[in-house]
């Protein structure tokens, strides 16, 4: 019952991310981002229930295995569509289904941040359907459904196999890599880079939304890390307090590191980047919150804050990646750090680092090409980027017919500055 209550708090994480994404975008696309968040959560839940859970399954439920090196490696679940055959009570399997419906929605919200100001609503929904129907369940089966990454311990002697209590890999890195694929497919916002590749600053429009989103995400993440650790990492409820403390310590250490770095660099702490640091700290805590000592959680958070800021700077200034909300750095880089942090825990056995590394390799070598390929294919049939007129007007007016702030006076330079 405690686990059920925790799972009910997980949507706060999605609400927090939606607020952060909206605040970090332009004001002329604010309502669009919020509506898109709601829509992708809806589409992903429907597609996941229809087909996604059939590929993902749960530990001990029907699955297909392949014999490699005389050992059985479980690679895909074999569940009926539409959750048929599941008894949806308060059993462990039904709690797994409920948590997964929320988790896949969270993963689908992440790329919205990267496509902000130029990603069509219909295309975002279609892309989240692809994510929830194929990319997410396949990888989540390998980690959480008794698949081959979780079997690396039993079959290859690598610690306990890939350990990921709160979804650093399955939710965060999968979402972050999808965000990277989306930025590559959409290209940068008009006016973001000059002809010689120098990036222009396009600041977020509402720091209050961003920071309020951080508080909401905090609640959701504690619930996600706790419920995930109990359901997927065989952690007892005795450790829930430790998980909440480590999640919090990682977030505050990361946010304070980000605030300190921006204070030194710019003379003042930057609200947007500090918020990115906060979310990045939550992400970095996801895999290992149940296994780290509090001091180690602070260290992981501190490293996450510095690493994420460096990654945001690198991607914008050197790699020509226009990611308005920093989703790739926060979720992909932060998630990979969190995944590797599991192996520094004293409770893990030898070979654990190799198992975690195998997870990172699978994300980069399988999930990234797969999610890019599927979204590229989708783009061929249903162009994902809004046309130039839509981008000039803003997504709110162009796709929704009304702005988020109808009583606000919009200054003419809001439109003209980036286009001259």
């Amino acid at each position, binding site marked *: 019952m405690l686990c059920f209550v925790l799972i009910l708090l997980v949507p706060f994480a999605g609400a927090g991310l939606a607020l952060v994404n909206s605040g970090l975008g332009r004001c002329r696309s604010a309502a669009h981002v919020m509506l898109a968040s709601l829509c992708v959560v809806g589409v992903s839940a429907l597609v996941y229930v229809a087909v996604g859970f059939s590929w993902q399954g749960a530990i001990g439920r029907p699955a297909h295995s392949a014999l490699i090196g005389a050992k059985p490696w479980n690679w895909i679940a074999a569940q009926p569509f539409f959750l048929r055959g599941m008894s949806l009570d308060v059993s462990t399997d039904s709690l797994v289904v409920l948590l997964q419906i929320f988790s896949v929605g969270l993963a689908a919200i992440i790329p919205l941040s990267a496509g902000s100001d130029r990603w069509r609503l219909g295309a975002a929904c279609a892309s989240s359907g692809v994510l929830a129907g194929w990319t997410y369940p396949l990888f989540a089966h390998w980690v959480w459904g008794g698949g081959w990454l979780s079997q690396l311990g039993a079959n*290859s002697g690598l610690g306990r196999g890939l350990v990921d209590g709160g979804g650093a890999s399955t939710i965060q890195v999968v979402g972050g890599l999808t965000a990277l694929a989306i930025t590559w497919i959409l*290209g940068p916002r008009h006016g973001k880079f000059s002809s010689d590749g120098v990036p222009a600053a396009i600041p977020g429009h509402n720091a209050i939304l961003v920071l309020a989103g951080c508080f909401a995400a905090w609640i959701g993440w504690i619930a996600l890390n706790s419920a995930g650790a109990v359901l997927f990492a065989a952690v007892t409820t005795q450790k829930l307090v430790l998980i909440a403390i480590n999640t919090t310590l990682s977030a505050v250490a990361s946010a304070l590191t980000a605030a300190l770095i921006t204070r030194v660099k710019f003379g003042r702490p930057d609200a947007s980047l500090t918020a990115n640091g906060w979310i990045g700290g939550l992400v970095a805590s996801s895999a290992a919150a149940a296994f780290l000592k509090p001091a180690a959680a602070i260290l992981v958070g501190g490293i996450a804050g510095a690493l994420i800021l460096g990654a945001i700077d690198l991607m914008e200034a050197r790699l020509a990646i226009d990611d308005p909300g920093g989703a790739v750095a926060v979720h992909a880089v932060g998630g990979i750090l969190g995944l590797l942090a599991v192996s520094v825990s004293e409770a893990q056995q030898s070979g654990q680092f*190799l198992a975690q*590394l195998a997870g990172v390799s699978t994300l980069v*070598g399988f999930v990234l090409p797969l999610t*890019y390929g599927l979204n590229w294919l989708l783009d061929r049939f249903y162009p994902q980027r809004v046309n130039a007129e839509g981008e000039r007007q803003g997504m709110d007016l162009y796709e929704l017919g009304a702005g988020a702030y109808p009583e606000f006076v919009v200054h003419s330079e809001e439109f003209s500055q980036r286009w001259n």
Partner: protein
Amino acid sequence: MRIAGFLLLTAGWVIVTSALFLLSAGARAAFVVAGIAVQILGLIFSIRTHRVMESERD
């Protein structure tokens, strides 16, 4: 160009997983490191391709 980058990413992953599935503990770590190195090359290749494509788009 980008396909070549993705092929390198996938090739590195195949090296890592093959090592984990088929090799004994001694040789396994070396092959995993080699696979990760191939993936880093693939990532660099994909990113450079993106930069070239963006400059051509401008």
